[in-house]
């Protein structure tokens, strides 16, 4: 995330925009080109938020660009609306509304399907604009006569007509766009966007309503597109129909990728390169129409080799140059816990779970009654009654085919039961989803790490804590993330609990496996759950790591209820107080570890009558 001196980026942008008219002409930029760059740049801020930050690759932005542009142009030309800026804002709102409706349809799908639908949307909008709505949009002629913005200040009138005069107007709005964009990505909403991009499954599991956030990103992108579309009309004094064309979406994507996704400035840089090369290749090298071919090849090369575009490449170069002095500590084992030292449970700061439901901290916290799961003819779990009390540490074991993972998935609400009921802290959670259940205080740590891979340790935990502090969805796009009450304290507490304080600002990709596992547990802990489910926490660990992890889990278990599944019997029995044994989809027996070890029926279940 962009964590720098406050307002550094904004100031630099303002300075850059102010200096541009004096510097750029010497580099061969005509004023009209600069203006076009600004419009693309603004269009791209929204797209970058959608794609670079939220991971949604939409080929349909031209639809919103055209909508905003034509609504504004229509108001200003046919409807005789007097104020340019107000018309622009109305166009923006229109685009945002359309974006919302389109998003409702498109965002029901993900990945490839989503991309395909956005392609179709772009084409549909173009055809509709061209034919049925031609009276309003001027069909293939577009809408001419869009006026320049002018402001009557009483004693004088300021008109921004064209060239460098108009530059001031456009640069102003670009600046506003950047300030707003930066605000959005620095907000909690921006953090959740990144989480969705990296790992939508986990983002939902830590309590965020990702569908609503996706729609938010889509609407934001639509608003930027709509406003930029209006500016296009103003800039050209004419609203062209090719705003709606698919190639507009295509060029936007290419410019953003060339400049660098996930940077907000990528589209501006990409547009500069694109338009500069277009002029240069055509004029200087006399290549005529081949400039697009060259740019296409450049685009393919960048996607293959420089995945984060020009800005990303410069950033990596900078890091490489500044790192050459230091020796990056190799992290094969990570920061190990001191062996046999006095790292006892009392050393770890306790993080008491938030008081949740109305019950006291006695009695059952989770109660499953008659839980059954059928897959067609196969019965995975049959009529299971299962109760865990507050503060217990319970283990679930069972031989192959016992139905442990299915049972676990029903408890975490990843899979709905065929019949039966689950009550958690007095709430009936049967058939609810992981997001709701996390909000109620039940979380899970996964067998295979589900981390936010492009973020640091601290940023990972921030995402999880935000889920607790802000609920499923909140539209606080203008709030500074530092201003979220209690965020820093809770993140620090979680870091300490899983012993990752020293590695807080390390990116996930640089962590050792054991550290990643601790972060995995940390993500489940960060929202102060009252019930923590752990799916094979010891998976893939060396003997040493197992010892450390058991110690860690014991320290976490203070004042918290935990249910653990694992195949490592020795470690599990050391950790848990009570064990439930499943066999062939049913509960066989429950008891303390000692009772289970000595129970012949359990041995029989595992060893299958070999020892007769």
């Amino acid at each position: 995330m962009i964590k720098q001196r406050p307002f550094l980026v904004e100031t630099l942008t303002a300075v850059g925009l102010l200096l541009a008219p004096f510097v750029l002409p010497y580099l061969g930029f005509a004023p009209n080109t600069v203006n076009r760059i600004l419009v693309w740049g603004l269009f791209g801020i929204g797209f970058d938020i959608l794609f670079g930050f939220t991971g949604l690759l939409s080929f349909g932005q031209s639809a919103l660009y055209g909508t905003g542009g034509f609504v504004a142009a229509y108001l200003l030309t046919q409807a005789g609306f007097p104020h340019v800026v107000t018309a622009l804002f109305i166009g923006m709102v229109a685009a945002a509304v359309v974006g919302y409706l389109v998003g409702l349809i498109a965002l029901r799908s993900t990945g490839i399907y989503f991309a395909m639908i956005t392609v179709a949307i772009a084409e549909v909008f173009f055809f509709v604009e061209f034919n049925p709505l031609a009276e309003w949009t001027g069909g293939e002629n577009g809408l001419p006569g869009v006026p320049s913005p002018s402001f009557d200040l009483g004693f004088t009138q300021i008109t921004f007509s064209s060239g460098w005069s108009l530059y001031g107007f456009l640069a102003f709005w670009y600046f506003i766009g950047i300030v707003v964009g930066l605000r959005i990505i620095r907000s909690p909403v921006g953090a959740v966007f990144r989480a969705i991009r990296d790992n939508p499954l986990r983002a939902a599991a830590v309590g965020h309503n990702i569908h609503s956030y996706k729609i938010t990103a889509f609407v934001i992108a639509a608003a930027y597109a709509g406003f930029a579309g209006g500016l296009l009309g103003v800039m050209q004094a004419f609203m062209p129909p090719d705003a709606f064309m698919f190639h507009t979406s295509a060029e936007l994507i290419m410019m953003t990728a060339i400049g660098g996704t996930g940077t907000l400035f990528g589209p501006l840089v990409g547009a500069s390169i694109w338009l500069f090369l277009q002029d240069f290749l055509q004029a200087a090298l006399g290549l005529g129409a081949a400039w697009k071919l060259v740019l296409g090849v450049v685009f393919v090369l960048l996607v293959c080799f420089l995945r984060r575009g020009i800005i990303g490449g410069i950033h990596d170069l900078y890091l490489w140059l500044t790192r050459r002095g230091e020796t990056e500590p190799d992290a094969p084992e990570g920061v190990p816990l001191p062996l046999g030292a006095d790292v006892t449970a009392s050393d770890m700061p306790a993080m008491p779970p938030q008081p949740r439901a109305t019950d006291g901290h006695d009695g059952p916290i989770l109660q499953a009654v008659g839980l059954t799961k059928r897959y067609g003819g196969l019965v995975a779990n049959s009529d299971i009654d299962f109760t865990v009390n507050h503060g217990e540490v319970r283990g679930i074991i069972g031989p192959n085919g016992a139905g442990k993972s299915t049972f676990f998935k029903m408890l975490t609400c990843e899979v709905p039961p065929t019949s039966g009921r689950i009550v958690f802290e007095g709430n009936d959670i049967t058939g609810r989803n992981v997001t709701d259940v996390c909000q109620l205080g039940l979380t899970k740590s996964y067998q295979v790490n589900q981390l936010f891979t492009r973020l640091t340790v601290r940023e990972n935990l921030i995402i999880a804590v935000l889920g607790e502090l802000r609920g499923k969805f909140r539209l606080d796009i203008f709030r500074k993330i530092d201003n979220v009450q209690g965020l820093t304290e809770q993140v620090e507490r979680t870091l300490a609990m899983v012993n990752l304080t020293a590695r807080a600002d390390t990116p996930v990709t640089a962590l050792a496996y054991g550290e990643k596992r601790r972060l995995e547990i940390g993500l489940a802990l960060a929202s102060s759950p009252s019930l923590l489910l752990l799916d094979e926490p010891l998976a893939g660990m060396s003997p040493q790591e197992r010892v450390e992890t058991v110690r860690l889990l014991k320290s976490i278990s203070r004042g918290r209820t935990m249910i653990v599944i694992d195949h490592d019997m020795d470690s599990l029995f050391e950790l848990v107080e009570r064990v439930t044994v499943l066999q062939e989809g049913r509960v066989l027996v429950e008891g303390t570890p000692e009772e289970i070890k000595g129970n012949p029926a359990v041995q029989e279940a595992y060893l299958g009558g070999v020892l007769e």
Partner: protein
Amino acid sequence: MSLLEVHGLNSYYADSHILFDVGMHVERNEVVALIGRNGAGKSTTLKSLMGVVRPRSGQVVLDGVNVAGKASHAVAHAGMQLVHEDRRIFGSLNVEENLVLAGLTADNKWPLDRIYEMFPRLRERKGSRGTDLSGGEQQMLAIARALIRDPKIVLLDEPFEGLAPVIVRDLMKACRDLAAEGQTIVLVEQNLAATLALAQRVYIINNGHIVHEGTAADIKAQPEVLHRYLGV
């Protein structure tokens, strides 16, 4: 020289370390079993031998050729076959097509008749699509598919899982016949009775480490070992 020699095998799922320096050897015509609890790494071991999971280090020497790290089609050509635990037959192809496909690139493939002799049920169902077969039939087909390539060694990953006792009996007979004909087999199986009946030697794996090796007879005589690593 053993038919199969495995040294220092380390395998990962992403960066999760599953197998720690696993080693074993299998002689010609032997049936060797690999047993352990769920999640101990039995399946991963077989997959690592076959190249479905690429081990990060270690050697897998089959008849003098090291196949560790090679793509599984290359390992198949070296003479190894794996019958996956979820069978993975091609549902959209019929029985005969599944068999023909398997034999396409084999040097010494078995004639179809020999397969059908071993598994008469498959002859009856040869035109049926994979999705229409019962669990037992699918398992037979999966094993037949491996055999048609005349492999030097066959790895069986939980072949009896989820099957009715009657079918398990039939399959066990087929396995016994195969072993009697000299086929070298590595067997991973949760059904300990079947395993100890078929295998001559047994390896026990726990938490990704090989913790015990012995003959089936010895293990039957020392149930404590089984308690320790397979029980609770």
